[in-house]
């Protein structure tokens, strides 16, 4: 915590969790998709579902999907800009269950290249955010550091191979979590790094044995 955490950030009101945090969730979602979306289905859960109109959460999410920052004065009219930019969007409400954080959104995005992804994330207070699911895989990502999401087969040695590749490219691992659906089945690794992971490193990771897919997620904060 420092002075500028208390005096700041500059943001469009009215709520750090329902507005500024929502912009960041949109930013993180397009960073995961890796391009601007042309189609966005946005489902809101809990307090997001109940109060999104009054808090401008819908505008804030669209703003994030267009790559705007939380202090962009155009946020109140983000819907108009989204239409001009050819983004087909739709808002709905969803019940993700009691245990889900009350400020949660699930994006289903499609990019111009045909790439798709589903991203679920929560605004956890003070503008801080956490992405909890990408394409049905559980993750934990806050957008403060660049990250790599790797889907792989649950086999001995995959983690060592991946971390070895990253070290070849002089990339330091700041945090790492591994999840799996079932033993020997499909697994995911979410790795937060201190450095941006270059194209060649992503390519090398994709060629690693037992790795099925690799996604680079740039930081958004």
């Amino acid at each position, binding site marked *: 915590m420092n002075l500028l955490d*208390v005096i700041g950030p*500059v943001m*469009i009101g*009215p709520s*750090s969790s329902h507005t500024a945090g929502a912009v960041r969730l949109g930013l993180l979602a397009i960073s995961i998709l890796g391009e601007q979306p042309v189609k966005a289905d946005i489902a809101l859960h809990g307090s997001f579902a109940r109060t999104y109109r009054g808090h401008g959460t819908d505008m804030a999410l669209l703003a994030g999907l267009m790559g705007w920052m939380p202090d962009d004065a155009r946020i109140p009219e983000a819907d108009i800009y989204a239409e001009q930019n050819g983004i087909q969007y739709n808002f709905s409400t969803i019940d993700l269950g009691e245990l889900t954080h009350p400020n949660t959104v699930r994006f289903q995005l499609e990019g111009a290249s045909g790439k798709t992804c589903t991203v679920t994330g929560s605004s956890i207070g003070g*503008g801080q955010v956490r992405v909890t699911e990408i394409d049905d895989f559980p993750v934990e990502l806050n957008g403060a550091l660049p990250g790599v999401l790797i889907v792989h087969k649950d086999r001995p040695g995959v983690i060592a191979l991946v971390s070895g590749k990253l070290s070849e490219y002089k990339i330091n691992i700041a945090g790492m979590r591994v999840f799996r659906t079932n033993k020997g089945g499909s697994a995911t690794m979410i790795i937060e790094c201190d450095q941006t992971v270059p194209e060649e490193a992503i390519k090398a990771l994709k060629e690693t044995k037992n790795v099925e897919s690799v996604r680079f997620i740039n930081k958004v904060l």
Partner: protein
Amino acid sequence: MVNDKLSLEKYIELAQKENKALYEVMLADNAKEMDTAPIALEAKLQEMLQVMQESIAFGLTGVKSRSGLTGGSAKALAEAMAKPKYQSLLGPVAQDALVYALAVSEANAAMGRIVAAPTAGASGVLPGVLFALKKHRNLSNIDLQKGLIVAGNIGMVIASRASLSGAMGGCQAECGSAGAMAAGAAVSMLGGTPEQVGHAVAIVLKNMLGLVCDPVAGLVEVPCIKRNGGSAMQALLAAEMALAGIKSFIPADEAIDAMKEVGDKMPCALRETADGGLAHTPTALAWAKRYFSK
């Protein structure tokens, strides 16, 4: 430092020992912690002051919130006070602090650009007090910047010992903390001693202890906007007392710890969930029903 609680009294002692102003020891400490030059930090704070000033101006145009629930009170008050025969109950400084605090809060509710200091919901208090004093006490933006440093560090101490979030600690943690920050800033900008800053902080927290967060329909509008005005008044009365040499029997750090204890004991219904207090009055529930059925 990660797990160490910050202490306002430690800052005060350090300033006294080194015979420096409070903002000086705080600025040096922050620049070191953030690994940045003090001058870069000061430039950032000037940007924040600029945004605060713009948000006052935007609010004074009489903006309405997106829900239609609130808006226009800052403009209405400013217009009433500008009438020739108007007799103010508050006097010039408090009057303007109130108008500015309402203006920024209404700008926030209307999706204007604001500085969350310490939060968006309590963003009117600091600009209210700072810019009223700037106008009536001939302060410069450099003076205001020093005030912001003191305010920010008071907020950091509160965050480390208690919380700045209504969902965690009720409105006492949002508007209460904002008032404490503004009171400390006011005392230091007007030449009070570091010790007097501590007393002003403690007085505001004591006066606002127990305040619950009960927003109508969960929106940052009712009662938030007027509470920003009220909190700015609390800041001024505490600064007035502290500058006159009146002491708080309970020291600042202990008042913050008491605020934390009260917040922990506060039921969830009174912490930003709109399940109690004003949010549960017949008027609020009827409005919320209409709003949610839209």
